[in-house]
C-alpha cells in the first residue's frame, strides 16, 4: 500500500509530456465544461459572421446558447420543447443561406430527432451544425433518461455526417471555429461537467486529425472527450509500473484518423479505446471496425457495456462504470499479462 502511495507521488511530478500542460486537478475541479466553451465560441463566431444563427429547444441556459441569444436576439430562435421541429427549422435556415447551430441535450437531439437528422440533414447533406450538450453519464443525477450513451453511434452511422468529441474547453473552441469553415453536417458532442484542461494553448484542431500525446511501445489508448484526461492519468500510472503507454485524443471520431490508429497499432502490443459512451458503435466500435479490416490487433474497449447509466454524482458514476485511470490500468495489465503467458 505504502509503495503505491509513494509511486503516485512520483507520478504527479513525472506527468506532463513535453508539449502538454499539467492536468488540472480532479474530474470536477479545474478547467471548464465544454458547454461553457461552446457558449463563448458561439459569441465570437456570431460577432465575426452575420450568417450564423442559433436554435435551441428550451434549454438555452444549460446548453449555453443563451449567451448568443442575449447578444444577438434577432439571430436566436427558441423552438420550445420540440426537438424534431428544431432540426427541421435549422435545416430550412441552412437552405435559406444561413449557418445554423442547433443545440439541446444530446439524448434529445440525436434521439428524438434522429430521423429528421437522417432524412433532411444527412441525406440532403445540409450545412447544419448539431452541437449537443449533456452527453454521457456525467449528466449525473438526472439519470439514464437524460444520459446519452449512444449518441456517437447514432450520428456516426449517418452518411455525410462528421462526428467530433472535444476533450476540453480549448479544443471545443477550436472545433466550433473549424466546423464553421467546413461545409456539411457536423455533430459535436459536449458535456455538462467541468473537465480538466488537456490540450496545449497553441493546439489547432482539424477534422480527421487526432492529437497524439505520446505513442507507447506496449499499449496505446485512443480516447475522446472526458476520457482523454482519464487516459493521461492512466498513462502515467502505467509508466511507473514499467509499461510504456501512449495516449491519442481521437476527437475526430468521424472521419477517424486512420493513419494515427494504424501507427499506434503497429508499434504496440495492445490498443485500448476509452469513451464516455457505450462500447457499441462509438469510438471503440469505429477503431475496431477499421483495425479488423486493415490491421487486426488486440483491442480492449473501455465504456458502458451495453447498459444504461443511472442517477448519482458524476465522479461516483465514472467509478461505477469503470471510466477511471485505475480501471484502464487494470485492463491494460491484465490484457498484456494474459498475452505473455
Amino acid at each position, binding site marked *: 500500500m505504502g509503495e503505491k502511495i509513494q509511486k503516485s507521488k512520483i507520478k504527479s511530478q513525472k506527468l506532463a509530456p513535453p508539449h502538454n500542460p499539467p492536468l488540472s486537478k480532479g474530474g470536477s475541479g479545474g478547467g471548464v465544461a465544454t458547454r461553457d466553451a461552446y457558449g463563448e465560441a458561439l459569441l465570437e463566431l456570431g460577432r465575426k459572421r452575420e450568417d450564423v444563427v442559433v436554435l*435551441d429547444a*428550451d*434549454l*438555452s*441556459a*444549460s446548453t449555453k446558447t*443563451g449567451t448568443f441569444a442575449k447578444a444577438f436576439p434577432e439571430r436566436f430562435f*427558441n*423552438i*420550445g*420543447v*420540440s426537438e*424534431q*421541429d428544431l432540426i427541421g427549422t435549422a435545416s430550412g435556415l441552412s437552405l435559406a443561406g444561413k449557418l445554423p447551430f442547433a443545440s439541446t441535450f444530446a*439524448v*434529445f437531439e440525436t*434521439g*428524438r430527432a434522429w430521423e429528421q437528422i437522417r432524412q433532411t440533414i444527412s441525406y440532403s447533406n445540409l450545412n447544419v451544425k448539431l452541437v449537443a450538450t449533456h452527453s454521457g453519464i456525467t449528466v449525473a*443525477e*438526472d*439519470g*439514464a*433518461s*437524460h444520459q446519452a450513451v449512444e449518441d456517437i453511434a447514432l450520428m456516426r452511422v449517418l452518411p455525410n455526417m462528421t462526428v467530433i468529441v472535444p476533450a476540453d474547453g480549448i479544443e471545443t473552441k477550436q472545433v466550433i471555429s473549424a466546423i464553421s469553415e467546413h461545409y456539411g453536417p457536423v455533430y459535436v458532442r459536449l458535456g455538462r461537467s467541468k473537465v480538466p484542461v488537456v490540450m496545449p494553448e497553441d493546439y489547432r484542431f482539424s477534422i480527421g486529425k487526432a492529437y497524439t500525446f505520446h505513442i507507447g511501445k506496449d499499449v496505446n489508448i485512443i480516447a475522446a472527450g472526458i476520457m482523454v484526461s482519464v487516459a493521461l492519468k492512466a498513462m502515467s500510472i502505467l509508466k511507473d509500473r514499467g509499461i510504456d503507454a501512449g495516449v491519442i485524443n481521437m476527437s475526430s471520431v468521424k472521419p477517424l484518423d486512420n493513419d494515427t490508429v494504424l501507427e499506434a497499432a503497429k508499434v504496440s502490443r495492445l490498443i485500448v479505446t476509452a469513451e464516455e459512451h457505450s462500447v457499441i458503435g462509438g469510438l471503440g466500435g469505429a477503431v475496431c471496425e477499421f483495425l479488423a479490416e486493415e490491421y487486426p490487433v488486440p483491442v480492449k474497449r473501455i465504456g458502458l457495456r451495453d447498459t444504461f447509466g*443511472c*442517477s*448519482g*454524482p458524476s465522479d*461516483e*458514476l465514472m467509478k*461505477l462504470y469503470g471510466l477511471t485511470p485505475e480501471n484502464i490500468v487494470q485492463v491494460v495489465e491484465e490484457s498484456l499479462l494474459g498475452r505473455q503467458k
Partner: protein
Amino acid sequence: MSQTAASRDIGFLKKQANIVRIDILKMLAEAGSGHTGGSLSAADIVTALYFYKMRHNPKDPAWKDRDRFILSKGHAAPLLYAVLAISGYFDKSLLMTLRKIGSPLQGHPCSKLLPGVEVSTGSLGQGLSVANGIAIGLNMSGINSRVYCMLGDGETQEGQVWEAAMTASHYRLDNLCAIIDNNGLQIDGPCCDVMGLEPIVKKWEAFGWHVIDIDGHDMKSILNALDEAEKVKGKPTMIVARTVKGKGVSFFEGKVKYHGLAPTQEELERALMELEDIDNG
C-alpha cells in the same frame, strides 16, 4: 358522491396535499438537485388522483384492475414518489435516497426499478401515446379501469403530444383522462415567450376532446372535474388545470428559476414553516 362526503374528502385531501408538498421539499433538499416548481404545481391534482379518484392497491402494484397513472412530465418524479410512499408502495425512508447511487428513486421515474411506476418517463412528449395504448388495451380486455396522464404545458410543444391527441379521439378513448399542468412556465421562461401555446382549450376541443378548464389548486374543482371526466362518453377528457409553478411556497411561486433547482437547507426550513402553518390551520 354526496355533498357531505365530498366536503369531508376536500378537507382530508388538502391536508394530504400539504404532506405531499412537505415530502417533495424534504427529498429534493436532501438530494441537492431536482425539479421543485413542477412537482409543487401538480401536487393537488396528483394527490386527488391517488387519495380520492384512482382504484389502486399499494400491496399489489400490478393488480390488473387498477387505474393507471402516467406521469408524462417525468421531471415531477418527486411528486410521484411522495404519493407512492404515502400510499404505502414503499417505505417512506426511501424518499431520502432520491437521485443517489443505487436508489430505485431515479432522477426521472424508472418503472424497471420502482413498482408503482407504470412506465419510465423523463423525455417529454411520450406519455400520452403510452396512456392511449393502455386505454385501448384495457378496452380490448374488457377491463373497466381508467387511465390518467399528467402533462406539462411546455411539454405540449412536442409534436408527439398532438399525434397522441388525434389517436385518443379517433379511438374514442373515454376511459382516458389527461391533465395539463398549465403553470405557464417552462425552462427558458414563460411559455408564451418561448413558444406560445394558446388557445389551449380550443386546441384540445378542436382535436375532439372534452375539455374542462379549472383552477388546478382548488380541490373541489379538481374532484368535480375528475368525476365529470368519468361520465363523458365517446371521447377522451382533457383537464386544463390552471396552476402556479412552485405552488405552496411563497418564494418559489411563479419563479422560472425554481424549475430545476432544489431547495437549499435554509429554503427548506422557511418553506416548511409556511407549509406546516397550513397544516395546523
